[in-house]
């Protein structure tokens, strides 16, 4: 029974992987990857890794793949025929095609090498069924692969790894926000209008505004204006715009130089 299940799930995983590599439309490639992940979860279950299999289905095939589907729908995947990949697209010359063919050969060599390492291994246990396992024996956090077992390992022996992984997730979240924010940020047209905040009334000049932190043209322009003898002490009326010199402004340059 387990052998039958293994071959079904294993061929499903390999078929999904082939689909990811070969399918033209990125959307179908994502769907193939979902199928691959589900069959891989079955393989994990067969290897007695219950908790990892559940995480694989819920987090990986669920959440991460939804992210992929959203981005593919947003960007709109361009189809690329796989035959053109190997023959070389028109106009880019035969060198790219040769590189791609070389890449395919190289990965074939990688597979052969991995299989040789597998067959020639000195580990006798590779051809065995693995460590003795009896369902229900031990119970609680002693039962191999259960959530209690994983949780105990993560919070005792691998606590440092656990915390490092959480920091990594935090950094990745911040990085994604920085990458996907509006380009130009504070120097864009709508943002350059100076808004009066409570901090403007009490803070000394030259310390700690967002504009100064970002630097760039908007800050330089505001600095230059202040040094030209414009009334810096008075709070600037909201919307009376200190548009930077570089950015396109609805007001003409002469109006800016006139001062008020």
């Amino acid at each position: 029974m387990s052998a039958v299940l293994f071959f079904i799930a294993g061929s499903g995983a390999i078929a999904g992987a082939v689909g990811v590599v070969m399918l033209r439309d990125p959307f179908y490639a994502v769907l193939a990857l979902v199928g691959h992940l589900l069959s891989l979860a079955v393989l994990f279950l067969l290897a007695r890794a219950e908790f990892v299999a559940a995480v694989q289905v819920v987090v990986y095939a669920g959440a991460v793949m939804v992210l992929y589907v959203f981005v593919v729908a947003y960007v709109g995947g361009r189809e690329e025929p796989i035959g053109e990949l190997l023959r070389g697209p028109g106009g880019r010359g035969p060198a790219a095609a040769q590189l791609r063919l070389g890449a395919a050969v190289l990965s074939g060599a990688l597979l052969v090498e991995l299989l040789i390492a597998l067959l020639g291994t000195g580990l006798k246990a590779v051809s065995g069924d693995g460590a003795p396992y009896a369902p229900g024996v031990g119970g609680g956090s002693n039962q191999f692969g259960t959530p209690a077992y994983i949780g105990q390992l993560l919070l005792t022996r691998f606590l440092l790894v656990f915390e490092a992984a959480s920091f990594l997730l935090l950094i990745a979240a911040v990085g994604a926000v920085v990458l996907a924010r509006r380009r130009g940020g504070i120097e864009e047209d709508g943002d350059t209008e100076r808004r009066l905040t409570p901090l403007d009334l009490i803070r000394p000049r030259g310390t700690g505004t967002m504009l100064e932190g970002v630097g760039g043209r908007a800050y330089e322009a505001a600095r230059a204006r202040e040094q030209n003898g414009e009334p810096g002490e008075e709070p600037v009326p909201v919307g009376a715009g200190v548009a930077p010199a570089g950015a396109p402004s609805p007001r003409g340059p002469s109006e800016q130089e006139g001062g008020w």
Partner: protein
Amino acid sequence: MAIGWYLAVSAIVFALGAAGVMVRRNPLVVLLCLELMLNGANLALIAFSRMWGNGDGQILALIVMTVAACEVCIGLGMVVAIYRRRLPIDVDELRELQG
């Protein structure tokens, strides 16, 4: 099933993923193929964990999943940023990482 069969499947999946990373041009598909490679490694880790009856491999597989999620996060953020700047979504055209 013998552990060797799991390792064979994981080797095939890993090699397919490596081929995809090198051959495909769309960055989205390249990211998908990276996932394939990570999953192949995960399967090998789980198989070795089963082989010794030791949970360390499963913990490592969970950490690999975390790293994969981070990589997807950053990679998709970059793809969206590339798309917003109207650059071609093609790893051949994007060989210079200039502004």
